[in-house]
């Protein structure tokens, strides 16, 4: 019988597919960063939303392929449940980025203080940075696998995980502060705009939260 390896080993590694997916998240969050800045500069962001839609389609396709391959595999590097949970969280990052962009196309805020605008831009930058670090952490999994789970590579991974966890904490503080500032303006700003911007901030914090979930799971699967 010819070529038993093709039948035994998946043509595309689920890990490589996950890594492709996280790269899409970085791409999407970079677009979001630019879109948020332009939004507060009063520019149109509908095109950015279309770009995210395309990335989301690609991500969905990858997610389906991973699930399909995984269902047939008998032995995997990581616990199947944990790995699929990572995939779920990574996928929800791109979904949430899409939600942010869609929201920005729905409403144009008026009479918003520069202070609040700046804070939201800073929060977006922080979130984008966290997604980038989440991607670095996930890409490191390739080295961990290549090294057959070498303790020194796991330590390196732990350091990367710590960075994302700390970033999540700072974003939380900033998000709360923006919320307080927004609601303090209840007599000055349009209440709809306050609720709208608060929703954007909540979505940004959720993205950060998902990035943290991903790295926490990675810590679990590398210490099994």
């Amino acid at each position, binding site marked *: *019988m*010819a*070529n*038993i*390896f*093709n*039948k*035994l*080993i*998946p*043509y*595309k*590694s*689920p*890990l*490589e597919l996950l890594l492709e997916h996280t790269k899409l998240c970085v791409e999407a969050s970079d677009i979001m960063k630019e879109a948020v800045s332009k939004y507060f500069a009063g520019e149109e962001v509908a095109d950015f939303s279309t770009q995210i839609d395309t990335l989301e389609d690609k991500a969905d396709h990858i997610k389906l392929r991973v699930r399909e391959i995984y269902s*047939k*595999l*008998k*032995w*995997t*590097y990581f616990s199947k449940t944990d790995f699929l949970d990572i995939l779920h969280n990574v996928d929800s990052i791109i979904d949430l980025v899409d939600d942010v962009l869609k929201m920005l196309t729905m409403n144009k805020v008026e009479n918003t203080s520069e202070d609040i605008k700046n804070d939201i831009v800073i929060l977006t930058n922080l979130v984008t940075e966290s997604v980038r670090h989440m991607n670095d952490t996930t890409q490191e999994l390739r*080295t961990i696998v*290549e*090294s*057959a*789970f*070498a*303790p*020194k590579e796991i330590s390196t991974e732990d350091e990367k995980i710590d960075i994302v966890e700390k970033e999540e904490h700072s974003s939380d503080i900033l998000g709360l502060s923006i919320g307080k500032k927004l609601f303090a303006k209840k007599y000055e700003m349009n209440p709809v705009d306050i609720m709208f911007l608060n929703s954007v901030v909540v979505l940004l914090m959720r993205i950060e939260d998902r990035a943290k979930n991903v790295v926490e799971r990675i810590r679990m699967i590398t210490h099994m």
Partner: protein
Amino acid sequence: MITLFAIAIGMFMAFAIGANDVANGMATAVGAKAITPKQAALLASFLEFLGAVMFGATVTKTIANGIVSIEHIQDPKLVIYGAISALLAAGAWVMLATVFGMPVSTTHSIIGGVVGFGLVSGGMKVVYWSKLFKIVLSWFISPVVGGFFAFFVFKILTLTILHRQSPLKASKKVAPVMIGFTFFLISFLFSVKTLKKDYGTSLFFGVVFFVISWLLSYVLIKRYSKKNHNEYDAVEGIFRKVQVMTSAYVCFSHGANDVANAVGPIALIYMINKAHTTQVSSIEIPKYILFVGGLGIALGVLLYGYKVMQTIGHDITELNNTRGFSIDFGTATTVLLSSIFGFPISTTHTVVGAVTGVGLARGIEVVNIDVLKDILMSWFITVPFSAGVSAILYLTLSTFF
């Protein structure tokens, strides 16, 4: 005339083995692009031939007269019909399975064929059931042993190379030892089993080959290994080259075990022609029969096998070199040991065991469960099918000729 016909079928069977099965031996090296399909075909054909001639006699004898007692058949011509029926039945099943892409084993097919003609020619009593039971048991044990070796080798590589502070430095020391050990094993076993030397002399030969191959590979690895910003990539680079050797080891072992599938029945015909009776148990298998089988396999690899290898080159993206090395080593050692003990086993199924072993060691993500189902199915279908066809052919030939 009929002997020539049998040799022709045997050669065809050997050709089919070379064309289809050998690709698995070189798959990891070709897949890792350590060697081109054409180079792999040349190397594989030479080593298959060498393996068949050096170690093929014991398994060939098992298939020729170790499964069915032919002494109950008075007319030697009937035994020749039986041998031809077994070959034709096995060949037909392998062809059919290839068309449907089923992972069947040539080994299982030929044994089914031999049992089939034995049962219709002499009934239940002529089959050496205890021997057959041991052979069938070896089909279950060989993937487990292959898996164990591959798991063990991968764990050694993990502890001695991948988990070290400098994996590159460690691999320059460990890889030559692994190569040396492979040559030790082959030369020791060849000396004991084929040259029939005593253990002391064989051990001496083994140590000599160990030292020579260790020294040579140490120098070559040191000279040709490349630095890389990623040490693991550099390690894989070393093992990419070493894998050519282990793939060659698989082909060598495969030739030793699978040549019997093609020439076992021919050997039986030779024995009968030599003895002019069916009392053939003391006759040794001449080298030229193994030579014919080895040549058939080599031709199969050269004329068709390399095409199969070309497809492999583009497909295995996930299997890296340290894993490929462990799989090859596990497979080849199991198959070679089985050849020494005269057990005809399936190389393909041993590969499955070895891949699973590395999977269990968290070295690779496997196994497509569908393949395991296919293999189980082939175990339960192959032997009855080829036995049935062989029996029908035998009855037809013995009735009409």
